């Protein structure tokens, strides 16, 4: 079946602009995650959505970062007033409900801030 889909695959933007990154999870997966992969910091958890519960935002690095998940499916990660240190690969993952299920990752969005 279809995997986790992320768009765009690459995004280049100027410092100070806002960007939106999109994630389509695997159908039927109730949990959705965003991670950031950068050279200096490795793979970092950003935010987690589970069903209708309040999201776990504990990994968001600043208030310039936000995410929403509409209708329990598609998610958008928004970065406002981008900075050069935001350059990274942003990975989305989804998971079926239950603790015995692994996370499945998309191919990521490579974000470059000029």
């Amino acid at each position: 079946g279809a995997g986790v889909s992320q768009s765009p695959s690459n995004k280049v933007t100027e410092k100070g602009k806002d960007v939106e990154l999109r994630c389509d999870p695997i159908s039927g997966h109730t949990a959705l995650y965003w991670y950031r992969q950068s050279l200096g910091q490795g793979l970092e958890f950003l935010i987690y959505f589970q069903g209708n519960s309040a999201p776990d935002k504990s990994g968001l690095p600043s208030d310039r970062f936000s995410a929403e998940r509409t209708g329990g499916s598609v998610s958008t990660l928004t970065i406002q007033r981008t900075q050069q240190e935001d350059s990274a690969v942003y990975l989305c993952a989804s998971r079926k409900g239950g603790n015995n299920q692994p996370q499945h990752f998309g191919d990521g969005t490579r974000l470059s801030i000029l």
Partner: protein
Amino acid sequence: AQSVTQPDIHITVSEGASLELRCNYSYGATPYLFWYVQSPGQGLQLLLKYFSGDTLVQGIKGFEAEFKRSQSSFNLRNPSVHWSDAAEYFCAVGAGPGGYNKLIFGAGTRLAVHP
């Protein structure tokens, strides 16, 4: 705080040789442990996972890993590496209240395979 350590940043092996990638974790409760592999420009692919039960787990592509609670380790092994196994390998622990939600990753080990 939970953490994962992968001591080896780079490893080079010859094709057909055996491989062991090390992973140590720090986590207070029973850990949920994972190995993922990432090829250039790709996302993370799950190789195998440990939740409970048999401490030797089999994964895809001929990989296996052994959970050793006494050593807080979850090392990944392959008895005969193929050139296509060249990639970056990440060990992760699932953390969070009531089980696991987010993953905490190690820094990764980049594997090169010589013909």
